[in-house]
């Protein structure tokens, strides 16, 4: 046995088989970790608030700025410490998960819906429709990053709806660009042409022969955009342009804790870690999906 050239020299194949499968199992388990964590977040977001009693206004001022694990005046333990109003951070993180996941989901849903509709129709129909859509996209692409969100969130009254709108206004472009370019390639695929030649209606072609193929990569993109939306919400909160104060979100908590980074690091750090972990897990999942759908192309 030799290895040559580019061959990396794996050990002989036969005895390897059991080890290989074991390693494969390990790898599969490791690969599943991000999805499991992501799932935990979603579960926490959905049922957490039912299990944990937390009121965003229920702070006990005697319990301000307590480190993680401290015992509160009512005898309970604050697992993640307390914030500047003496509110339990654990509850805040769990409730914040709900808001953040909700905002992320809503932004992604709205943007995906709008983006896919515009992109697919533009890409598939081409011509004038495409021209108009492309120009609109061009214009929006000229706006730097979250700038438009800052302007919108900055000049309108605070509300969840405004945050969602502000983030969706630029977010849909990614979906539109992706689905447009995919629709343009798919349009040239022979099965689409066959359907056209057979006289299948345009709407049906879109639904049956184009959209199903856009769905996968879009889903992969959605994960990244989901993470992006959560991060952007945090950035808006940092600038003081985020949600109304009555709502609990990671962004709000992180932003509120930024003053205490040197003294009460946990206020910012714990929801920050929760956020980063979620973004990373979502990112990993997105990477895997992108690779998976990339390979399938």
């Amino acid at each position, binding site marked *: 046995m030799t290895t040559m050239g580019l061959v990396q020299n794996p050990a002989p194949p036969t005895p390897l088989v059991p080890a290989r499968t074991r390693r494969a199992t390990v790898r599969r388990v490791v690969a599943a970790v991000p999805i499991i964590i992501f799932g935990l977040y979603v579960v926490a977001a959905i049922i957490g608030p039912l299990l944990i009693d937390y009121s965003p*206004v*229920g702070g006990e001022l005697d319990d301000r700025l307590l480190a993680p694990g401290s015992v509160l005046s009512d005898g309970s333990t604050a697992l993640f410490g307390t914030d500047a*109003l003496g509110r339990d951070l654990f509850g805040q993180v769990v409730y914040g998960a709900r808001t953040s996941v909700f905002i992320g989901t809503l932004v992604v849903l709205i943007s995906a819906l709008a983006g896919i509709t515009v992109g697919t129709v533009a890409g598939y129909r081409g011509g004038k429709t495409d021209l108009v859509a492309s120009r609109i996209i061009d214009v929006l692409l000229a706006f730097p990053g979250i700038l438009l969100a800052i302007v919108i969130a900055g000049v309108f*009254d*605070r509300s969840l709806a405004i945050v969602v709108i502000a983030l969706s206004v630029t977010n849909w472009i990614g979906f539109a660009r992706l689905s447009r370019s995919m629709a343009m390639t798919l349009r040239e695929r022979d099965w689409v042409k066959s359907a056209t030649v057979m006289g299948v209606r345009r709407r049906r072609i879109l639904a049956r022969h184009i959209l199903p193929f856009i769905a996968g990569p879009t889903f992969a993109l959605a994960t990244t955009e989901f993470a992006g939306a959560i991060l952007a919400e945090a950035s808006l909160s940092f600038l003081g342009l985020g949600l*109304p*104060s009555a709502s609990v979100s990671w962004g709000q908590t992180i932003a509120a804790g930024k*003053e205490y980074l*040197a003294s009460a690091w946990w206020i910012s750090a714990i929801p920050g870690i929760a956020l980063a972990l979620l973004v990373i897990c979502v990112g990993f999942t997105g990477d895997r999906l992108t690779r998976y759908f990339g390979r399938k192309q």
Partner: protein
Amino acid sequence: DDDTSDSGGEAGGGEIAVAGQFPTESIDPNGPLAIDGGTRVASIQLYSPLLETIGPGEFDPRAAESWEINDTATEFTFTLRAGITFSDGSPITGHDVAASFERTVASDSPFSANFVDVSVAATDTTVTFTTAAPDPALPAKLTGLMITPAGATEDSYLDTPVTSGPFQVESFTPGGDLVMVPNEHYWGDQPQVDQLTIRSIPEVAARVTALETGELDVIWGISDDQVTQLGGNTEVEVVSAVGSAVTTMWMNASTPALEKAEVRRALWQAVDFEKKIDALYPESGEPADSVLAPTVFGYAPQEPVVYDPDAARQALIDAGFDFDTTLRFHFSQAQFRQWVDSVVADLAAIGVHAEALEKEQAVYTEDLLALNWDINIQQVGTLGLDASYNLGRLYTCAAERTGYCNPELDEMLRRAGTSVDPAEREAAYAEATELIWTEAVGMYPMFVKNLFATRTSVSGFEPDGEGLPRFDTVSVDE
């Protein structure tokens, strides 16, 4: 000493860098941004007023040597110090003061609202203000009038304007650094430092860090928690200065739920303000005993409202309060968040639902004027340290600000605003304050002190009568 590299050379000199939270966007003391935080701090260093407040109803002369008020308090004549000059060496005349006044009035700034129907006349050495109606508070109002050359226009303030105060401008980037050096033509004592840089660092963590590393010598706009954090640092000192600001939470008496004074008083009683101040503002807060700060002319201490949630609840029940209503608690600045949240929590404890509504500034203003709120929170200061600016302006029926209207109160305020006799004015304001306090037009929980942190190398730092930082007496040793 910016960074650490460049230290002041001459003995007694040195350079200092200071920073607050808000940028200095304009250094025009008579422009539309005149009462903007950054602009005011800059103006104090750069320009001279005619006179300054040193205590309630007490004034010290500055550019003016003396002044006279006629019997009806409608004519005010100021005589300028002899031989005083601007930073370019040209003399300061009454015409300059008159021009400054006219620019202020024309500037559409909130400050100009102080001078309705006031006309001005000047000679080289005097300036005379004539009001249509008696206005005994005018000298107090004029403490904010900074003297600039008659020929000055808006454009004069874009880089290095001619100044009348202890400092002159070395360089200025609007929104960026303002670098000042002593004004050699200043008529008063020369500043101790060779250079003063005012900058803005919006991020409080960055600001505090810069002080700790010595990049800055004085900072302000810090919260009480920061003070606690700085407590361990021996190179840093915290200075607090009494200003005129009072945390004011009006309760809209024009909404049905808050119509009754008993209800309003009960709500006040239901909030444990003392604890909030202890916890949230141990350094900058002080339980208030009046609508106005003690520094203000017209201040009259009242009986503190004692926290008693049970009594409050009982009072509400007695008054027939509908516990199902949700009170709209309206505010716009992030700094009030913690406070508002904890007030809401206290109210919730006695079964009163209040909803914190953080509003965008423009919306907040609109809603405020439209009385589109139930409870509101602001820090209300008293420009010129005379109650007329505060009580006289905000609490009349015509003002429609607080939602409370009482002809009796109107009458008291009218008397206080037009009387020539200080004692009579003081008595009238005391009466009005008592009425406002007992009728609970709002809750007045806290006097707000301004917090400054300085490095120990800085000495002689003392905020002015309104609690703003002044650097002409500051010196620094390396």
